[in-house]
């Protein structure tokens, strides 16, 4: 079933991860209580619930928004990772490698350091600033890597890694200077929804919808681009324009992911590869499947991060790399014989 019904499998897995995410934490909400609480919120349904009032608050004001933020972030990281891999025709490309995520992080921290979001407007400036940082990074890295008409992948990645280091240290510098918010910012740096409530979810939703929508539409174009820009153009694609649109959409998505959850590595690299190995290279399916898989993967990692050292919460970025790296190496080992890339 995993192989033959990819969408069904991924939706089931995501549903399971989402339930787990809202049930598990400092207070465990039993499945039956969870169901009755959720059903009671549906219009036209009246369910007598015996759950204590605190469960209501925990579920609707803490767990659900946190779950939504994590799911959106995972979906965004994995789908933009798949798109970057396809666009640069490089299995190593992910939002971090070419520096986009670090640029977005710098943008977000810049917004944070100028005005920590007390107001709603302040909240909405964070993803916007992250997006600006992401796009500027792409523009800088791309033009640095450009050799004549072509953008060789090796120079692209070198430029990306170098710029990424630069942006990261600038970010650290800004955090170091803004001592009042230092601890909160450090938590952000290692990945973790430091801001609670529904605010961050609504703030990134439009970016993710727009970006991911664009990436899903670009599926066929990404397939054709695998044969190189010249052939893509000869097959009828305005290759240069498509490339810019995909970069914009992927950067929008990455920026949204980074804005409130900070640096979460490995999801954008591992999830698309696992999807590719399991279901093939067709980008029309790879992008939506990576999206679902990314949401599931980050939700599970987040649950693990909250449970493993309870009552302490581990930054989820540590978990994704700690679990993601060995898992990815194992998958890679399994797929060694096939030309999946």
């Amino acid at each position, binding site marked *: 079933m995993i192989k033959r019904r990819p969408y069904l499998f991924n939706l089931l897995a995501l549903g399971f991860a989402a339930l787990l995410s809202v049930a598990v934490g400092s207070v465990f909400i039993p499945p039956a209580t969870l169901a009755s609480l959720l059903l009671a919120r549906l219009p036209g349904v009246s369910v007598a619930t015996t759950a204590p009032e605190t469960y209501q608050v925990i579920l609707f004001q803490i767990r659900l928004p946190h779950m939504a933020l994590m799911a959106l972030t995972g979906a965004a990281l994995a789908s933009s990772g798949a798109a970057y891999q396809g666009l640069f025709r490089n299995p190593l490309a992910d939002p971090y490698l070419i520096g986009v995520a670090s640029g977005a992080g710098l943008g977000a921290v810049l917004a944070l350091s100028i005005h920590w979001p007390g107001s709603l407007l302040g909240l909405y400036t964070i993803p916007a600033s992250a997006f600006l940082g992401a796009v500027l990074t792409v523009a800088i890295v791309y033009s640095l890597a450009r050799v004549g008409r072509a953008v060789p992948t090796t120079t692209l990645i070198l430029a990306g890694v170098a710029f990424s280091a630069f942006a990261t240290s600038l970010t650290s510098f800004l955090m170091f200077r803004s001592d009042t918010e230092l601890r909160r910012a450090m938590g952000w740096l290692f990945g973790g929804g430091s801001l609670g409530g529904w605010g961050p979810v609504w703030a990134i939703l439009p970016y993710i919808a727009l970006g991911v929508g664009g990436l899903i539409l670009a599926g*066929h174009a990404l397939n054709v681009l*695998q*044969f190189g820009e010249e052939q893509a*153009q000869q*097959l009828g694609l305005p290759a240069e324009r498509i490339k810019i649109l995909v970069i914009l959409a992927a950067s929008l998505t990455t920026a949204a992911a980074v804005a409130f959850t900070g640096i979460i590595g490995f999801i954008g690299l591992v999830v698309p590869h696992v999807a590719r190995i399991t279901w093939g290279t067709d980008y*029309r399916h790879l992008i939506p499947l990576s999206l679902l898989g990314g949401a599931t993967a980050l939700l599970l990692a987040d649950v693990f991060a909250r449970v493993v050292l309870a009552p302490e919460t581990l930054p989820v970025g540590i978990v994704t790399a700690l679990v993601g790296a060995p898992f990815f190496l194992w998958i890679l080992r399994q797929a060694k014989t096939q030309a999946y890339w």
Partner: protein
Amino acid sequence: MLEIESLSVAYIEKEVLNSVTMSIASGEILAVVGPNGVGKSTLIRAISGVIPPKQGSIRANGVNTSHLSPLQRARLMAIVPQARELPPAYTVHQTVLMGRTPYLNWLGQAGKSDHAAVWRSLEHTDLSHLAERRIGELSGGEQQRVLLARALAQETSILLLDEPTTHLDLQHQSNLLNLVRKLSQEKTLSVLMVLHDLNLAGLYADRVALMSDGRIFSLGVPAEVITAQNLSAVYHVPVNVIPHPDYGTPLVLPDGRIIPAHPSESVQSS
């Protein structure tokens, strides 16, 4: 019908094509031959719109292509590139479906007519049985056929091939060119193909364009163009041209400056 008139192309300052004029009628095959670096591949890239011409015009079925979008162009002409560095993970079917790119809707979805066109071109190129195989598992000859099938799926009346036989063995060379010949007649395609092998050009092309330094040195039926005099002037090496024993087309033999492997035998046999 493809008409090229005084086409010039320059990379930065260097002129690569200089006032090239040629036209290919429906059902005709024109082979472009010449030494390395005379602009044969540049010609295909310029016609297909990948590099902008400096001067001149290209008309496809009477339509001036200079202001066409890639999509409009891809509905008029299809290109068979060299089978190099193809993404190995796509199946033959997926690859050939990419030939339908200029006809897909904005969601990139293929309809009934697209799938029908894909299967038709898979049949034409004898690839139906390999449809679900991955490109990376195929031989060089099969890969080249997949690219031909992809171009046929575009359903254009103009076909441009860039050295389609270069990496193929003897059997695959003649199989592929026979197929091109057959298709050009059945579908009355205008075919331009860049070839390295002068003997194949003589055998399969209706007319041959011999290029030298970005210009057309000679253009005409094979027997007129592929002559010892023309070739030694363009390739700077003396050659011997004899008629093909079966078809009468020109066959090129190397001559002079040859250091023979078996000098005594060759003396005895002659």
